[in-house]
C-alpha cells in the first residue's frame, strides 16, 4: 500500500487568494466613491454658497438701487413739498417735507450700510450727503421764511438755481451710483454665473468620473466575481471528485480528530463495520476496536497525534476490528495526517484482510507440508544411501565366496570332477560373477540418482577420446572404424556425463563387435531453435526392432539374450537418468541388422534449478 502524504498539506484554494484582492478592490472602490461623494458634497456646498452669494449680493444690490431710487424720490418730494408750501403755505406740505426728509435721511443711512463693501460708492455717498444736507437746509430755510415772512421773501432769500444745481449734482451722483451698482450687479452676476457653470461642469465631470468608476468597478468586481465563481466551481468540482473518491473507495476510509471521534466515514467503512450510512460519524473510534485492544490503542493514538506521520498502524501486530454486531475481522490500517475542517485530523484507511490472512495461513500450511515432504524425501534419500552402503558391503561378500570356493573346489578336485561336474561348477561361478556385475551396475545406477550435480564446462571431445583410447588400448587388434566429429562444449556434471559416454560407446562397441568392420560414428551439434545440444552415437551393429524402442531405456530391460551379448540392462537406464537430471532427452533409432543410433540432448542454458536428485527417473 502506498503511504499518503507526509505533511499537513496546504489546500490550494484559488478562491482564497482572489478574495483578498477582491476585498481590497471593493474597499478601494468604496473609498473612491466616498471620496467622490465628499468632493461632490463640497462642490455642491460651494455651489450653493455661490448661489446664495449671488442671490445675496443680488438682493443687496437691488436694495441699494431701491434705496437710491428711494433717495431720488425722497429728494424730489422734498423739493416738491417745499415748493408746494412755498406756493400754498399749507402746513401739511411742511409735514410731508419733514417726513420725506426723514425718509431720505434713513435712506442715506441705509445706503451708507449698503455701500460698506464698495469704497467708490462710499466716497460718492460721502459727496452726496453734504449736498443733501445743504438741500435740506435750504428748503428748510425756505419753509421757515415762508412761514414767517411770506412767499416773496422766501423766493428772494433762497436761490432756486442753487437748489436746482444741488438737485442736478445729486441726481448725477445718484445716477452714477446707480450705474455703478447695475454694472456691478451685472458683473457679479456674470462671474457667479461663470463660477456656477464651472462648478456644474466639475460636477458633470465628476459624475462622469463616478459613472466611469462605477462602471469600472462593476467590470473589475464582476471579473473578480466570475473568477471567484470559476474558482468556486473548480473547488466544487474537486470537492465532488473528492466525494466520489472518498465514497467509492474500495477500502474503508475514516477521518478521526484529535479526540478520537470519527468525523467522516465513507460508504465502505459503513459496510465493513456493519453500520448504516451516517451512523459512524460522531462515534468514538474506540467503538470499532475489540475491547482488548482499546487501552493500548488509546496510548498509541496519543503518541501518534503528538508526532503524526504516514505509516502503517501497529506494524507487525495482528490487528482486529469490531463490527457493530460484535464480530471481529482482521485488518490492515494505514494512517496519514491530514488537515481538514481547519484542524489536524487523521486519515485512516482500513482494509479487511480476512482473505489475505486465510491465504497466508494456507501458504503457511503448504510450506509446512513442503517442509514435511522435504524432510521425508531427505529421509528416504538417507535410507537409500544406507541401503546402498549395505548392499556394497554385504551383498558382494557371499558372491565372492561362492565364486572363490567354486574356484578352489575346481582346483582342488580337478582330478575327481568329470566334464559335467566342471561345467556345473562353471555355471555356478559365472552366475556369481554376473550377480556381482548386476550389483555394481545397480549401485552405479542408484548413485547417479543420488549424487549432487557439479555443473561445469564439459569437453566431450576429451572424454570421448579417453574412452576410445581405453577401449582400443585394452584391445589392440580392434578393427573398429572410428568416425569422430568435433563435439560442441556443453555445461554439466563431467563425471556423470562421462558415464553416459562410457555406456553409449561401450554399447556401440559391444553390439557391433560381430561385424567384420565395425564402424562407430560420434557426432554432435548445437540446435539454437530448440536451444539444446544434440549428440549421436551410431554403430553398424545388430541394431534393434523399433517396436521395442521404449523398452530400451528401462532398468534391467534388454532386447538381446545374455548368451548373445552380455550385459545387465542397466546401462541405458543410467544414461537416461543422468541426461534427464541435466534437463535433456534420450532416444534411439535402429533397424535389425542395420545398426542403431543412440542420441541425447542437453539444454543450452544452465542446469535447471529444480534439479531434485532422487526425483528424476524415467521419461524423456
Amino acid at each position, binding site marked *: 500500500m502506498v503511504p499518503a502524504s507526509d505533511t499537513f498539506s496546504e489546500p490550494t484554494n484559488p478562491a482564497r487568494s482572489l478574495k483578498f484582492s477582491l476585498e481590497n478592490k471593493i474597499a478601494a472602490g468604496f473609498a473612491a466613491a466616498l471620496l467622490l461623494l465628499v468632493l461632490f458634497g463640497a462642490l455642491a456646498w460651494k455651489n450653493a454658497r455661490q448661489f446664495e452669494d449671488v442671490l445675496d449680493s443680488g438682493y443687496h444690490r437691488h436694495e441699494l438701487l431701491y434705496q437710491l431710487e428711494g433717495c431720488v424720490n425722497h429728494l424730489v418730494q422734498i423739493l416738491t413739498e417745499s415748493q408746494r408750501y412755498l406756493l400754498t403755505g399749507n402746513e401739511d406740505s411742511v409735514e410731508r417735507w419733514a417726513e420725506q426728509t426723514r425718509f431720505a435721511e434713513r435712506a442715506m443711512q441705509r445706503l451708507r450700510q449698503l455701500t460698506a463693501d464698495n469704497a467708490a460708492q462710499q466716497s460718492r455717498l460721502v459727496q452726496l450727503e453734504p449736498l443733501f444736507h445743504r438741500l435740506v437746509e435750504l428748503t428748510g430755510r425756505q419753509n421757515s421764511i415762508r412761514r414767517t415772512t411770506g412767499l416773496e421773501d422766501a423766493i428772494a432769500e433762497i436761490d432756486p438755481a442753487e437748489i436746482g444745481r444741488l438737485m442736478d449734482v445729486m441726481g448725477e451722483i445718484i445716477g452714477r451710483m446707480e450705474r455703478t451698482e447695475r454694472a456691478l450687479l451685472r458683473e457679479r452676476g456674470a462671474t457667479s454665473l461663470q463660477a456656477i457653470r464651472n462648478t456644474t461642469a466639475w460636477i458633470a465631470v465628476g459624475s462622469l468620473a463616478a459613472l466611469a468608476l462605477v462602471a469600472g468597478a462593476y467590470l473589475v468586481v464582476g471579473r473578480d466575481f466570475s473568477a471567484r465563481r470559476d474558482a468556486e466551481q473548480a473547488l466544487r468540482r474537486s470537492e465532488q471528485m473528492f466525494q466520489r473518491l472518498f465514497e467509492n473507495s474500495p477500502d474503508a476510509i475514516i477521518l478521526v480528530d484529535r479526540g478520537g471521534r470519527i468525523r467522516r466515514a465513507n460508504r465502505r467503512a459503513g459496510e465493513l463495520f456493519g453500520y448504516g450510512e451516517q451512523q459512524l460519524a460522531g462515534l468514538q473510534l474506540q467503538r470499532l476496536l475489540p475491547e482488548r485492544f482499546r487501552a493500548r490503542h488509546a496510548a498509541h493514538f496519543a503518541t501518534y497525534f503528538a508526532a503524526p506521520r504516514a505509516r502503517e498502524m501497529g506494524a507487525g501486530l495482528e490487528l482486529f476490528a469490531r463490527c457493530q454486531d460484535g464480530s471481529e475481522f482482521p485488518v490492515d490500517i494505514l494512517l496519514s495526517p491530514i488537515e481538514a475542517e481547519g484542524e489536524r485530523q487523521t486519515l485512516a484507511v482500513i482494509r479487511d484482510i480476512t482473505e489475505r490472512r486465510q491465504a497466508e495461513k494456507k501458504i503457511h500450511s503448504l510450506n509446512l507440508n513442503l517442509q514435511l515432504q522435504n524432510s521425508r524425501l531427505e529421509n528416504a534419500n538417507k535410507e537409500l*544411501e544406507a541401503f546402498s552402503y549395505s548392499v*556394497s558391503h554385504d551383498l558382494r561378500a557371499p558372491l*565372492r565366496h561362492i*565364486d*572363490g570356493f567354486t574356484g*578352489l573346489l575346481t582346483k582342488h578336485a580337478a582330478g575327481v570332477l568329470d566334464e559335467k561336474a566342471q561345467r556345473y561348477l562353471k555355471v555356478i*561361478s559365472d552366475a556369481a560373477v554376473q550377480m556381482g556385475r548386476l550389483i555394481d551396475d545397480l549401485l552405479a545406477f542408484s*548413485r547417479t540418482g543420488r549424487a549432487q550435480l557439479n555443473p561445469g564446462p564439459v569437453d566431450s571431445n576429451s572424454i570421448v577420446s579417453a574412452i576410445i583410447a581405453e577401449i582400443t588400448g585394452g584391445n589392440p587388434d580392434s578393427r573398429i572404424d572410428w568416425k569422430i566429429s568435433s563435439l560442441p562444449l556443453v555445461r554439466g556434471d563431467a563425471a556423470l556425463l562421462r558415464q553416459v559416454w562410457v555406456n553409449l560407446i561401450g554399447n556401440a562397441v559391444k553390439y557391433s563387435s560381430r561385424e567384420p568392420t565395425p564402424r562407430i560414428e560420434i557426432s554432435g551439434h548445437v540446435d539454437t531453435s530448440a536451444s539444446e545440444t544434440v549428440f549421436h552415437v551410431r554403430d553398424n551393429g545388430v541394431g534393434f526392432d523399433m517396436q521395442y524402442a521404449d523398452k530400451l531405456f528401462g532398468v534391467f530391460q534388454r532386447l538381446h539374450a545374455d548368451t548373445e551379448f552380455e550385459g545387465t540392462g542397466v546401462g541405458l537406464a543410467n544414461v537416461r537418468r543422468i541426461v534427464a537430471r541435466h534437463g535433456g532427452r534420450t532416444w534411439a533409432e535402429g533397424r535389425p541388422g542395420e545398426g542403431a543410433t543412440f542420441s541425447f540432448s542437453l539444454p543450452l542454458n544452465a542446469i535447471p534449478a529444480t534439479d531434485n536428485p532422487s526425483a528424476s527417473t524415467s521419461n524423456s
Partner: protein
Amino acid sequence: MNTLRPILLAEDNPNDIELILTAFQEARLANEVVVARDGVDALDYLFRRGKHANVAAQRPAVVLLDLKMPRIDGREVLRQVRADPQLKTLPVVVLTSSREESDLLRTYQLGCNAYVVKPVAFDDFISAVTQLGVFWALLNEPPPNPIPAAGS
C-alpha cells in the same frame, strides 16, 4: 630384503580369510599372516595390549584392513593407528567390498595408503591379493621403526 615382517589381516569373515590365505599360499608368500577378527583384536595386536599383551609383537610390514567389522570397524582402527606417533607411518591397505565413494573419501582422508575392492570373480580375487602381497611384503620398503618412547 630385510627380515620378513608379518602381515596383519583384519577381517571378520572366515570365508574371506580362507580365500585370502589360500591366495597368499598360491603366491608363495613366506610372510607370517596374523589374523585379527575385528578392530579390537587388531588394535590389541598393534598396541600390544589385551590378549596380545605378552606377545613380543613385531611391527607388521602392512595391515590389510577390512572396513566392515563388528565391535570396532576398520575406519576406527585406521584413525587410532594414524593418531599414534609410533604407528603413524604403518602402511595400511584397506581391503573391502565397498566401492562407495564416501568410504573411499573418508578412508583416504584418514590416511590409508591404498584402497582395494575385493573382486567377486575368484581369479581376479586371487590375482589382486597376490599382487598386494608381493608389493607390500616384498617390493615395498616399509618405514623404519620410530625411536621407541617410554611406555606404549
